[in-house]
Structures are given as C-alpha cells and as structure tokens.
C-alpha cells in the first residue's frame, strides 16, 4: 500500500482580511455552499473554519500530481460527516486527477491555534493507478 501525505498552514487573519476586503467575491471563488454554511455567518469564527478549509485544499493539491493544471478550488471540498469528522470530497477535474493517480481514500485532520489553521491529508493509493496497462 502506498501512502502520500500533504500538509499546509494558513494564517487566519489573512482570511479575515480577505473576507473584509472582497466579501462574497472572495468566499464564493474559493468555497462551496456547504463549506460556507458549515463555517457560519459570524466573520470572526467563519474565518477560522475557512482558513482550515483553504489549508485542506492546499494540502490536497500537494498530494495530486497536477501536471500543470490546478483544479478549481471548489472541486476540493471539506465536508463534515454525521459524526462530525471532516472529510475530503473531490469533484470535476480534481476527482479525475485523483482517479488517474490511483487515490482510493483520503483522510483529513484540521487544527487551529495561535492564529494559524492547519490541515493534514493522508491519501491511500492503489498499487496500480487507474488507466495504467502494467
């Protein structure tokens, strides 16, 4: 079994400043409806959650072999399971990249502290990526 790890950090105040300056143009460009709803409407607490989600998207991008193309930010989505655990859901070009690379499963952990949001993603890869002939 092959494992890949991606990790990223995002200062929360930078997200708060972007929300303050660009408003929904910023949030709608980066985050899905589900992500925005999950983080609530209070700008201060929302910034913390959104910073974690941005870090998660970046962590996933570090795992995927982008081959010069970066998927849309919203094609990498952080969802909450019924039990409250965060999980990565890919769609569109991000899902295609992951499938071609043989990514079978991703696990996500989010943390916040000291003004920084952190995301760590572990991906389990198939022995042989989808679409290979050997």
């Amino acid at each position: 079994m092959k494992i890949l790890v991606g990790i990223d950090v995002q200062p929360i105040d930078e997200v708060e400043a972007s929300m303050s300056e660009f408003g929904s143009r910023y949030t709608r460009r980066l985050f899905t409806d589900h992500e925005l709803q999950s983080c609530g409407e209070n700008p201060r607490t929302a910034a913390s959650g959104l910073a974690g989600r941005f870090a998660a998207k970046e962590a996933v991008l570090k795992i995927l072999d982008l081959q010069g193309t970066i998927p849309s930010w919203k094609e990498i989505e952080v969802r909450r399971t019924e039990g409250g655990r965060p999980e990565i859901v890919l769609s569109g070009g991000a899902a295609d990249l992951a499938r071609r690379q043989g990514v079978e499963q991703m696990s996500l952990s989010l943390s916040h502290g000291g003004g920084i949001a952190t995301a760590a993603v572990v991906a389990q890869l198939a022995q042989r990526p989808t679409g290979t002939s050997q």
Partner: protein
Amino acid sequence: MSDVDATIRKVLETHGRLPVSASALKDDDDLYQSGLSSHASVNVMLALEDAFDVEFPDALLRKGTFQSVAAIREALESLGVVVGPG
C-alpha cells in the same frame, strides 16, 4: 514602465504579501519563488479584477497565470486589457 505594469506592481505591493518590494522585481522573476503564497495570489487576482474591471475565468485560475509580472500582463491582455508601450 506602462500604466498596466505600474498597476500590476502596485497590486502586488498591496496584496501580494511579498517579502521584497514589487518595484524591485524583474518582469520574469518567479513570484512564488519570491514569496507569493497561493492565498495571496487569490487576493492579487481579486485586486487585479477591481483595478482593471475584468473577471478572471476559471480557465485562468492556474498557478502559471500569476507566476510573474509578465505572465499577469499576458493574462490581462487575454482579457482585453490594452497594454501600452513600456
């Protein structure tokens, strides 16, 4: 330096969070190597949209679009921004 170049550098100065002055960057200097983060590049993109009254389509939301001052200028030209002589 054209007005477009001056505006690009001003946007980089105010939104790029670069550890170096944007005015000191050469046209082809790699902005990511110079300290531009992915998050800051989103802010640069939104500020460029405001400054030039354009909208970057998803197809241009690639790392390469914001790789250098020259690459940004090229992207703006593709969006219809007229770049005058430098």
